[in-house]
């Protein structure tokens, strides 16, 4: 999965031709770490259709706050530079991620 940070966010996420899913995680966030291998699998499944990236909140704390993110795990679903959906905390499951990813594609 592509590593996203405050410096490449605009280029890789907002200006991306392909829809993007950004996984906001942190080294202290056990649910995030548990989910990561499954998200890697999803990234493989959607390869060529959706770009998946991960952003380490511990190294981009201010930037996360500027995106109104102060809780993990959080996933943003972005298309055409616009945030289409957001999932946080207990809303995050493999089922809900897949549903939001499919919705992101269906809008094309």
């Amino acid at each position, binding site marked *: 999965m592509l590593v996203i940070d405050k410096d490449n966010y605009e280029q890789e996420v907002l200006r991306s031709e392909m829809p993007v899913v950004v996984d906001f995680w942190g080294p202290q*966030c*056990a*649910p995030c*770490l548990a989910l990561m291998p499954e998200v890697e699998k999803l990234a493989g499944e959607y390869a060529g259709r959706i770009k998946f990236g991960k952003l380490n909140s511990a190294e981009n704390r201010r930037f996360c706050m500027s995106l109104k993110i*102060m809780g*993990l795990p959080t996933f943003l679903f972005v298309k055409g530079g616009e945030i289409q959906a*957001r999932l946080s905390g*207990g809303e995050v499951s493999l089922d809900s991620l897949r549903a939001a990813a499919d919705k992101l594609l269906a809008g094309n």
Partner: protein
Amino acid sequence: MEKRELVILGAGPAGLSAAIYGRRAGLDTLIIEKIAPGGQIRNTDEIENMPGVIHASGLELAEGFRRHAEHFQAEFRSAEVKALKVHEGRKIVVTTAGEIEAGAVIIATGAYFKKLGCPGEEEFIGAGVSYCAVCDASFFVDETVAVVGGGNTAVEEALYLTRFAKKVYIIHRRDKFRAERVACERAAKCEKLAPVWDSVVEAIEGDGLVERVRVKNVRTGEVSALEVAGVFVFVGTAPHNEYLNGLVAEKPGGWIVTGPHMDTSVPGIFAAGDVRDSPLRQVVTAAADGAVAAMSAYHYIDSRGQALEMERK
């Protein structure tokens, strides 16, 4: 349909302990987990009350449980349990990865943190409202936050948050904590902790991120606002039982009723850990439950096997 001897639902301390005992009793053991092995302790910074372990992080302990179950070759499967059914005496586990017929089932799906249910709570999840201090504390360095609740978890998580935040309010509806004495004494000594007694949260407000909580004093009726960047909610737990649809007897609140052998109201279905009706929900009690449930499942499967053999003769 896939057939297994023992199917364990949930891989927290109860389920993993059951897997260890099940495997050592020689049962073919499958353990189904929705997210990752370890359970709620994965979200706990420190565990200091597991006998034999003076101090460990929740994650370390969770990993130890997982490795122990793997050591005895329990099979793990990543899937969500959608239903548990009994059809003509056959126990069927319906998961997102197919259906399994089980000789015996141990329900060990645990519990989750209840929500406050006040305006703003849902809106600000991930934007200041949190149910996991370890996950989110680092966002609140030098900020002021509020913890809601007065039990062990609330007090311990509030103490953890004082390592990051400059001030931590604990909003509690009574005038003293229900936590263990050790935790209460630490809280009383901590200068960064500010209890807000006899109070409930009426609303969480902000613009994109949490900016304040509206708090009502239940004795005086007075409403005030506290400026905070985060609200951590620890107001008790509720069982993960939604997939059971009332199959086994429950107490009010959904906690599963069990006998001394961790037996539920349905023969061959056992329950262990936080999901069942019990006076204490700790790692040590969950693990003990798992051991009892696994041995009961073993005796159940064994006696059924003997009964079948008698029928054949």
